[in-house]
């Protein structure tokens, strides 16, 4: 029977005694996490933890490992570098570019005192689409702040719009509070 694993052919004389003394095995219960510590001596616990941390062979009594000399320089080797998780990048698209430009034009009009730049019908259509779009994202777990920062709109702006939206669908504020506590959204 051919053997692709050549390491098996290593001279056996080089191996330490196959059988470890039982206490040494006790010292390396690599897979064990007893529900209770009863029956374990302090030394058992110390050996157990040490073996867990360092993968010490059970046949080598862990306590026999040569003490590490503090002053001896240790070799430091970088084994792997793992990059930070990258946030999902939302690529720009033509519709978003168009929306950004349109919003900028509206802001400009408003800054110049023109708050009748859109007809009521146009405002309703825009508000309806944005409302649906934002809610669908939130329900799908794709949450992001509804406005860019704290000062994008005033508190009064927010309250007026929230109130108007609730009124439009015949909801009271207490119903909003109840729904929020039950849905977690």
């Amino acid at each position: 029977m051919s053997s692709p694993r050549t390491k098996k052919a290593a001279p056996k004389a080089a191996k330490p005694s196959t059988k470890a003394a039982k206490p040494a095995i006790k010292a390396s219960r690599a897979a064990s996490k007893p529900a209770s510590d009863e029956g374990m001596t302090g030394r058992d616990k110390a050996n157990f933890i040490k073996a867990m941390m360092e993968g010490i062979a059970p046949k080598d009594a862990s306590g026999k490992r040569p003490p590490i000399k503090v002053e001896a320089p240790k070799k430091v080797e970088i084994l792997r570098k793992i990059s930070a998780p990258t946030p999902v990048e939302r690529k720009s698209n033509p519709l978003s570019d168009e929306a950004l430009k349109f919003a900028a034009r509206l802001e400009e009009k408003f800054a110049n005192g023109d708050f009748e730049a859109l007809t009521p019908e146009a405002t309703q259509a825009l508000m309806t689409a944005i409302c649906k779009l934002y809610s669908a994202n939130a329900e799908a777990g794709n949450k992001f702040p509804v406005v860019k920062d704290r000062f994008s709109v005033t508190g009064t702006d927010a309250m007026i719009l929230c109130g108007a939206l609730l009124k439009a669908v015949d909801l009271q504020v207490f119903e909003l509070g109840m729904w929020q506590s039950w849905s977690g959204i």
Partner: protein
Amino acid sequence: MDLIADRGRRVQVDELNTSKLLAHAAKQTRDKGFDDVLIVDVDAHHYENESFGEILPFMENEVLKQLAIASRAKGGRGNVAPSGFGYQDMGGRVTRYPLRSSEKTDANGPHRDVQLGNRWMDAMGVDYSCLFPTGMLSIGLHPQKEMEVELCWAYNRWVTEKALPESGGRLFTMLCLPFSDADECLRQVETFGHRPGVRGFMVTTVRPKMGVQDNAYMKVYRAIEERGLVLSFHSGPSWGDHTFQSCNRFLSAHALGFSWYNILHCTNWVVNGMGERFPKLPVLWIEAGLSWIPFVMQRIDHEYMLRPSECPLLKKKPSDYMRDMFYSVQPMEIQDMGALETTFRMMDAENSLLYASDYPHWDFDLPSTIWDLPFLTDKARHNILGGTAHRLFKLPPRNEAQKQNLIKYGNYQEF
């Protein structure tokens, strides 16, 4: 490559390399001197669905073959074999699942499954692995008996003709039986039973149909016994089974399911006196953990004393028959060491327990899980890791030190 973590956050990861992933296992192998110990893994897996392109042409019936091959065409036209619900990889936390396809193998080397097998066996210090399929563990749920027969036939031909011959003898198999059709089981035992690398036959226990005690199967068991092969029962989960439909977490359906299906069939096996009918047939129960064994022993011994008229074939307690059979160790529930020790005592683990990794599945066990148990004798340790399997499956030691250890603990046999 990217893996998706929480809230759509992506985490960059390297491609999978089994040897790198298992570097710490290789350290354990070196530190613990596993090269000197014959280690037999009686339950490891490959993903046979990745080789369906090679397997399906072995189907015999032209119409079913065309259906199966066509279903794999682009466009997601259907599933060839039953597939279960579930999240084995815990949302990518067990990274070898989503990264599996990224692992590179030598296109000019042996079959990819063999190359991957060699990597994990070398890392763990395993000498031989019994290779089982993954998706086909659910074959018992296929509504078409004919398709179950065809798929088992095709897989059994492919694995014995294409995959195993390239493994240098390190991979062996217990072939999947189409248990819904006893006549076909017999035909496949007769056809494949003598092939190199075939050490037994396996019944998937996730199946709602006939019980193992049905008269139709007696000829199958006899044929396996006559050939000196092993009959094994491999468990699995079935979240969609009505028994588990109230489970709202994969954990629950998985933890119970794997034990449940072996509990069910093992109970039928024992109570119906199969141990008396086929005393020379080695029977092996796979991948149900160990904690179910004392439970079943206690339960059926108890009722056996109360209702002896229902099991007249038994000449000793059901638990005695259970101790006559074999069990794979994984996934070993190492939580309460006292309970585990009692389990080992009750099942006579020194003579009945066989190491299994279940690699690459998510809850695999390393040989160190057995090696490091504080209550085992040296003989038990060697028997469980490979000594008992050496005798059961007729697997020779791979070096002189292993041979000497087999001799030392009374396991060595010439084949």
